[in-house]
């Protein structure tokens, strides 16, 4: 058993997430891509990605996520996938399905793509379509058929929030109709665009309870035919999540421009720099960089984490959430009931539950669009 503060050699980054691009045809209000994504147009070339993949495999990475933005907008996706397959990765494409034609799917299959996770990325602008089974359902059923025809397992993901949670019965029904073998109902996590839109997106306790009951009923009905995962929202539970399975323990994220991060959103943390894969090898980055070492293990902890009996289980929760809500990346995650800042989470849940129509009109949803991104980015740099 590891003692608090002790340093052990970290294991391999088993899960490598390649965010190939921030370009995306959708405008989801809960996207975790950085607010200023539109200012980050630089993307690694095919050859650079191939080198990153090779270095990752040498470190022991086994799972590769091909993500974005929408990874299908990169026309070298097949080349990257083929190289990943040759290296021995299990390759996962995380997509909205927009742009996945039968021809493209066949090419990806031939490249060795192992799995497609199809998201119902209802961007809320299309909420009516989404809920009325029309446009979204047509697209998703077309893509679902393409996925099935290639023999890939049918894995679906839906981000859940206050505006769609009451329709969870219909959402699960849709997934069942499309032949999903695995369905992930992922409660929104409040970073980036979702944090900006938090008052609109946070469900109430009652909504969550009802959604869990509905999910359980579907589980009983579907049995083994469709496995449903309900990803609990940490804002409501009072227990922090073991974020990315522990900082620098399993997960290595490479952004479109080649920045290596220990989690999707770590770039927001102050006083910490993250290396570029263009300047350093993944091995140096994983084992030696300050960015990856800072919050490894438990040695960095303060009270109440440093003496908490659960510190090895949750590892203090999420550093980004601690920074966003407690203004201190080394604080306990305010999602935790023991955090002195836990009231900020509770207040957010209460405020969301009591949001009036007028307030919602005064503070409209902010869509993940390049124009909004540029406007907010310039705003942020003025403040900074």
């Amino acid at each position: 058993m590891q003692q608090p503060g002790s340093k052990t050699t970290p294991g391999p980054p088993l899960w490598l997430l390649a965010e190939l691009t921030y370009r995306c045809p959708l405008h989801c209000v809960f996207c975790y891509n950085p607010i200023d994504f539109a200012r980050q147009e630089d993307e690694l070339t095919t050859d650079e990605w191939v080198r990153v993949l090779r270095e990752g495999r040498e470190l022991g990475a086994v799972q590769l996520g091909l993500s974005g933005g929408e990874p299908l907008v990169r026309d070298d996706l097949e080349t990257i996938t083929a190289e990943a397959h040759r290296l021995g990765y299990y390759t996962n494409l995380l997509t909205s399905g927009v742009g996945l034609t039968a021809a493209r799917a066949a090419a990806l299959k031939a490249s060795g793509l192992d799995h497609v996770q199809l998201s119902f990325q209802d961007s809320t602008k299309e909420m009516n379509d989404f809920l009325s089974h029309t446009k979204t359902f047509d697209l998703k059923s077309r893509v679902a058929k393409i996925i099935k025809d290639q023999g890939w397992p049918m894995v679906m993901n839906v981000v859940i929030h206050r505006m769609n949670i009451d329709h969870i019965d219909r959402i699960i029904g849709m997934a069942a109709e499309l032949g999903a073998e695995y369905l992930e109902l992922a409660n929104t996590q409040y970073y980036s665009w979702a944090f900006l839109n938090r008052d609109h997106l946070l469900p109430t306790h009652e909504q969550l309870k009802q959604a869990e009951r509905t999910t359980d009923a579907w589980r009983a009905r579907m049995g083994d035919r469709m496995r449903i995962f309900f990803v609990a929202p940490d804002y409501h539970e009072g227990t922090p999540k073991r974020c990315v399975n522990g900082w620098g323990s399993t997960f290595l994220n490479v952004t479109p421009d080649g920045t290596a991060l220990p989690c999707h959103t770590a770039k927001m943390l102050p006083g910490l720099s993250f290396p570029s894969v263009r300047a350093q090898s993944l091995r140096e980055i994983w084992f030696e960089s300050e960015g990856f070492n800072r919050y490894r293990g438990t040695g960095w902890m303060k009270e109440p984490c440093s003496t908490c009996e659960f510190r090895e289980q949750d590892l203090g929760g999420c550093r980004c959430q601690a920074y966003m809500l407690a203004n201190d990346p080394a604080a306990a995650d305010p999602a935790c009931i023991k955090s002195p800042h836990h009231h900020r989470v509770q207040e957010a849940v209460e405020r969301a539950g009591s949001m009036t129509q007028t307030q919602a009109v005064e503070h409209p949803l902010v869509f993940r669009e390049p124009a909004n991104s540029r406007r907010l980015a310039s705003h942020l740099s003025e403040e900074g």
Partner: protein
Amino acid sequence: MTPPGIDTRPRVGTGFRLQWEPAQNSHVLLYPEGMVKLNQSGGEIMKRCDGERSVAVIVSELEQAFSTEGLGKDVLAFIDMAGKQRWLAWD
């Protein structure tokens, strides 16, 4: 599902991939966004599940490889469990 018989020929389940990982010094089973790290006996059984060999053949190969006997019951129990987890399938 009925427990697998000694004459059936299991193979690695659809969507799963079995491979040796030097970094972990073990066989691992990969599936969408996940991984099972197998212990030595699990790895030795799984790598023989190719849809060609019967469970009986797998048992006798293992008994030979490890100079022992009476492995049938343990191997069947593992294969039964692996089938329930969809790690193994039967055509």
